[in-house]
Structures are given as C-alpha cells and as structure tokens.
C-alpha cells in the first residue's frame, strides 16, 4: 500500500536517517529560544574552537535582553484619562480617520514590527519594504568602486592607507616613518571643496621622499558627481543590515570577575563564571553558584 521512495538529495552521501545541511552560523533569533535537546553537546564543545557554546550564547542574549528593558518589572502604565471638559473641547478638531484609529489601538512592540519586517523581506520584499542589502545596491556602483569596496571589506583596509598601499606597493616597514604628512593633509580635504572630479589622476601627497618612486604617496581622488548621486540615491538598509558587525581585532574578549569586576582569572568548575581570586571564588561558591551539573 505504501511505498518508500528515495528522493534525490543534493548530497551524495548514502547516509540513513539524516542528511547534511548547511550551517548558517549563529542565529540570534533561534538561539533566543531555549534549546531543549542536544544541550549538553553544545556545552561540551564549549571553548574548543574559540567559539562560544550555545549555552553561553543564550546567556548573553538573555542578559542583553535584560539590559534592554525600560523597567525591571513588567508594568502597565495606562495613558492618563483627560478631564471630560478638555476631551470634549478637542473633539471639534479631531475627526479621527481610520488610519489614526488603527495606529492608536495597535499595541505592537518594536519586536513585533521587526518580526513582521523580517518576514516580509524573507518573502521577497513584499509590502512596504524596499529591497535591501548590498546585493540590491551593488549594480548601481561603477565597477571601479565596487572592486575597491570589495577589497576594503576584507580587513582593516577600509582606510585609504591600505588601498593606497596596494596601489603603490610601499614597503610597510618604511611606511610608518615616511608617510605622516600632516601638513599636506589639507590638500586632500581641499580636494573635495574644489571638486576636481575631472582630474583622472590621483593627487600626489607631498613629502621629502617623492624622489623615490617607491615612496610616493597618492591620495585617492574624490568620486565624481555621478557616483555621489548614485550613492545618495540608494535606499536605506534594513534594521538588521545596518547593525555594526563584529570587531575587526582578533584578540579574545576580556573576562571579568563576576563578583568584584576585576580581571576574571579563574573559572568556576561548575558554572564557568569567572572570579578574580579565592576571596571572590569563596563567596561565589557559597552563595551565587547556581549550577547543578
């Protein structure tokens, strides 16, 4: 009666019972939900690859949500009722339209609106939302700029230094000594005032090392009017796309004592919170450590 048919899968592994799916990385929206299963696996993988455990990630998200609260407790503060006389006097002006009524009775929070927005974007930019993200705006940027932007996205190259450095192959060891042309800098700022966009060549930053072709520094030219117009005409990014990315530096985050705020030097063996020394650890163990495993 029933027939089991093996459907074609994108992965070629003949593995029964499960399939490989792409790991999209850390998703705050999902992590906020309490992970019911596989909790310990996450815990045991903690700290191995420099990545944080799911338990820690959850704790951080909960903590941040806690810090984002307006009041400690959930309170309902009703809008105070106005005296009838005043309310009556205002009627003459206000003929509330259906839009206004709808907006006023809406009790949606920002979170609700944001979820709606995300759903709309996921569904293909439906409704009010405008196409978002770099992909949507990329075509309008001329290719030269795009290349630079792509290169800049890689590391701390976002500054002209490294783009300039890439262009002129300046040995990095000399860079620190040669190129601090504070006096020549007004030129580059002047450049935008004069709006010398017609000039195709990059402007030379004057230093005493200009005789050496390897040490010449060029300031990148201002983009042309056309590029600026296109940049300004781009639509706004979505709320989530405009959030600042993770820090550029690769050093590990600092850890602090959970009791006194000094450096967290030792870690509690059962709950993984850090303390600065035995004094604070004792207090933590006696009263605060709430781990059961």
């Amino acid at each position, binding site marked *: 009666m029933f027939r089991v048919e093996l459907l074609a899968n994108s992965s070629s592994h003949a593995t029964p019972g499960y399939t490989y799916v792409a790991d999209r990385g850390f998703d705050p929206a999902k992590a906020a939900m309490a992970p019911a299963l596989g909790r310990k696996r996450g815990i045991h993988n903690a700290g191995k690859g420099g990545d944080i455990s799911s338990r820690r990630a959850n704790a951080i998200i909960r903590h941040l949500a806690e810090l984002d609260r307006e009041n400690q407790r959930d309170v309902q503060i009703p809008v105070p009722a106005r005296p009838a006389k005043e309310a009556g006097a205002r009627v003459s002006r206000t003929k509330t339209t259906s839009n206004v009524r709808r907006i006023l009775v809406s009790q949606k929070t920002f979170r609700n609106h944001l979820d709606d927005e995300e759903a709309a974007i996921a569904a293909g930019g439906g409704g009010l939302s405008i196409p978002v993200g770099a992909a949507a705006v990329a075509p309008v940027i001329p290719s030269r700029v795009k290349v630079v932007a792509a290169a800049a996205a890689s590391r701390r190259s976002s*500054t002209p*230094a490294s783009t300039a450095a890439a262009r002129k192959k300046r040995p990095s060891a000399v860079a620190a000594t040669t190129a601090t042309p504070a006096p020549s800098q007004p030129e580059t700022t002047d450049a935008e005032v004069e709006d010398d966009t017609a000039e195709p060549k990059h402007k030379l930053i004057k230093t005493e090392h200009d005789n050496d072709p390897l040490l010449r520094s060029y300031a*990148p030219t201002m983009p042309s009017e056309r590029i600026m117009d296109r*940049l300004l005409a*781009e639509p706004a990014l979505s709320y989530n796309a405009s959030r600042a990315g993770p820090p550029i530096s690769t050093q590990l985050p600092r850890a602090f004592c959970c009791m006194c705020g000094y450096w967290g030097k030792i870690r509690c063996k059962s709950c993984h919170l850090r303390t600065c020394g035995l004094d604070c650890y004792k207090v933590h163990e006696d009263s605060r450590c709430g781990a059961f495993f």
Partner: protein
Amino acid sequence: MVTKSRTSTKAAKNSPDVPARHIPNKTFVIDNGAYTMKAGYACDPSSSPEEALSNCISIPNAIVKTRDNRIWTGTQIASHVTDWNEAVFRRPVEKGYIVNWEAEREIWDQTFFEEKATARNKQLRIAHPEETTLVLTEAPNNLPVLQRNTDEMVMEEWGFGGYVRCLGPTLNAWNEVQSLFGDPLNKTDSDIMPKDCLLVVDSGYSHTTVTPVYKGQPIQRAIRRLDVGGKLLTNYLKEIVSMRQYNMVDETYIMNEVKEAVCFVSNDFKSDMERTWKANRKREEAQSVVVDYVLPDPNAHKTGFMRPHDPLLHAKKKKGALSGLSAEVLSEDVLVLGNERFTVPELLFTPSDIGMQQAGIPDMILQSLSVLPPGLHAAFLANVLVVGGNSCIPGFMERLENDLRGIASSECVVRVRRAEDPFRFTWLGGSRLASNREELGKLAITRQEYQEYGSGWAGRRFAGMI
C-alpha cells in the same frame, strides 16, 4: 511678527513659478528622542545659535508612574515628580523609533496642543497646525511600517500644513560647524548651506549611530548602528551595583543620576583597573578613582551627590554614635564605586565585554567608511562630529579620537569634535534648515499633496525615491 513677514517675502520671491504649492512659513522642529524631545519654533536666520537655542525646550518623552501610583506626562514630570524612588517609565519611543502612538499622542497633545495659551506653554504651543510646517527627526534605518504610521499620525491626526521627516543626524550638517573644526568660513553669503562632508556619531539613549552626511544628505549604505546607548549603560550599572552592594533594580532614575555623576571613559583601562583593585584600595593612588555616592533621601528632601571615598566610613558607622559622626552621616546610604565608574561606559568602545558581537564606536566608524569610495575617507575622518548625551561622559572624546587615530590610516587627518550643545545640536540644525526656505521646500510635503497622494507617496518621497 518680524520673522514671519521677512521669510514670507523671501519664500514668495523664491517660488514664483509654483504658486499652488504653499509651505507654511512658521516652522516647528521636533527632535523626537527616546529620552527627551527637543522642540521649539525655528527662528530668524540672522539670529545667533544662542538665541535660537533659547527657543528649544527639552521635554521628557515619557509617562511616569511614581511610588504613590500617580501618573505624570511629559512636561509635568520635571515640575511634579520629587520622589524618584521606584518610579517606572513608559516610553513611546523604542529603540529610537516611535512605536507606541497611543502614548506619544498623549505626550504631544499635552505638550504642543493644549487648548489654552498660557505663559508656560507659549514657546511650545502649536495653535494652528495647518499653518505650521513640522520638521520631525527620526533615527536611521527605521522600519517602513513605523515611518508610515508616523506620517499618517502627523498628517491625519494633527494635519500640519507642511511636513518634513528626515534623519536626525543629517540635520547637524546644517549647523555652523566650520568654527568647531577651526576651518575658515568659505562662504560669506547669507545662504545657509550644509557642510560638504560630515561624519555624525550620535550616541543617545537607545543606540549609537554613525552617519556619513554628504551635502546634507545621508549616505544610506554606510550608516551603522551599535546597540549600546545610555539606557543599556544605566541598566548595566544598576545590575552591577545590585549584585555587589544594594539592591537597586527598581531605581532606574536614580542609577541614571549616579551614572551621570560618576562614570568616565578610561584612557588607560588596565592601569585604572589595577588602581581600583580591592587590595590596592587603601593606597593613595586608588583614592583618585574610587568615590562614594550618597544616595538621595526624598523624605529629608536631599539629593544624591558624589564625594571622595572614605575607606574608614564603614568601620566608623559600625561604632555608631561613639565615632562622633553626626546623625546625618549615620543615616545616609552610600554606594562605593570603583571599577564600575569606567567599566560601564567602556561598553561603548568594547561591547564584547558583555559578550556583544558588535564593534565599538571607532571600529564602527571604519566599518562605515569601508563601503564608501576611498576618495571620501579622508574628508569624513577629518570631520567627525559627535552629538548625543553619551558624549558628555568625561574622557569620551579623548578616547574616541585616540582610538580612531590608532586604527585610521596614518595619511589621514583625524579630527573628532563634540557639538557645543550635544543634546540640542540636531534641533539647532533643523532650525537652520528651516531658515533656508528653498531647501526646506525641496524636502517638505504639503497638506494638499498628502491629501491627494496619501501616505504611501509620502513615504517614498521622504525616502528620496520621487
């Protein structure tokens, strides 16, 4: 009114070809922040910034419920609330965006649309919205739904004659910032024009944003936001203090005052940390960092204040009257603040201290520039303007300039400046924009246009798509 007649003749001169489009000359500017609204009438273009700012009034944008279950709104808060213990807040602005219009309408109605004109509300009362142009700010990257709600409320509930909704940070470019950066005034003519390149860092109550502004317009792709603002800092301080000393979890307002009084941004985090270590506390050098904060006592009508740390105070208090302390000192509650003073604002620069996966402000500035053509980098780095309440934390500006100098290219000049009045600078920019009738006309929509084309059109218009 001198202002009105002058500007109206000017407007008539400027737009003879479009007689049908009328934008009212009276302009009211609201910088609708999450913590306070900055509002007032824009004034004459010839007046000085000080004169203009005298028109600008800060109103708490909140409904407060005090311990004795009384509810106060907007302007009432400053005059009526004396006991801030356990006060709870309802704020219509969430994350910098107006979300709850039920509460916001109440606050606006009470502040701007009171029935009777009194001496008190003279500066804020909008008697005839249909003859007034409203300039309303919003935080960058607002949700389209919320923008639409705002437009509908402004035009349908109150019916303003003219209306501009724009990003708050962009208004700063209209201010006279040349003197702030020590640049010569390049234009001597009377026309008020925006600065060419300005990178606005706005660190407020809900978040900190970086907005590159080019000739008064935002470059949308480069706007970045760090979800750390004054609220998070206050809550973090509250949490730490509650864990280490007294339970202050319900005392948001008081902890905000503590934060404003004691917090500073450290320019040498490690050494400050060593100085406040408890084993070093008794030494001389620690004394400069560790302070006592005496909590307010509403029953005795005393406000809170900061004073140098007295390491023996606790022991003396135990002895009670024998120690010779006055009853006043014995009854007061003291918070001892050591590393709390600088680890809290440190979150603006190192959000990873609480595990946040976001870059601090200097990094964020570079992230913002990284999506722009390299030719613009130098111009923006040389013109970084900081507005918003967090910039008033001592040490903030030095730290930002130092850190930015350290990571920016050595060929670029880095100039970081704070606005003279970081709270009302955005409002002042709006006021200056209003005096340039031509530019205002380009941005504004009129009531007739709204009634003809609707809120969808208004949203596209303000997004710059039409």
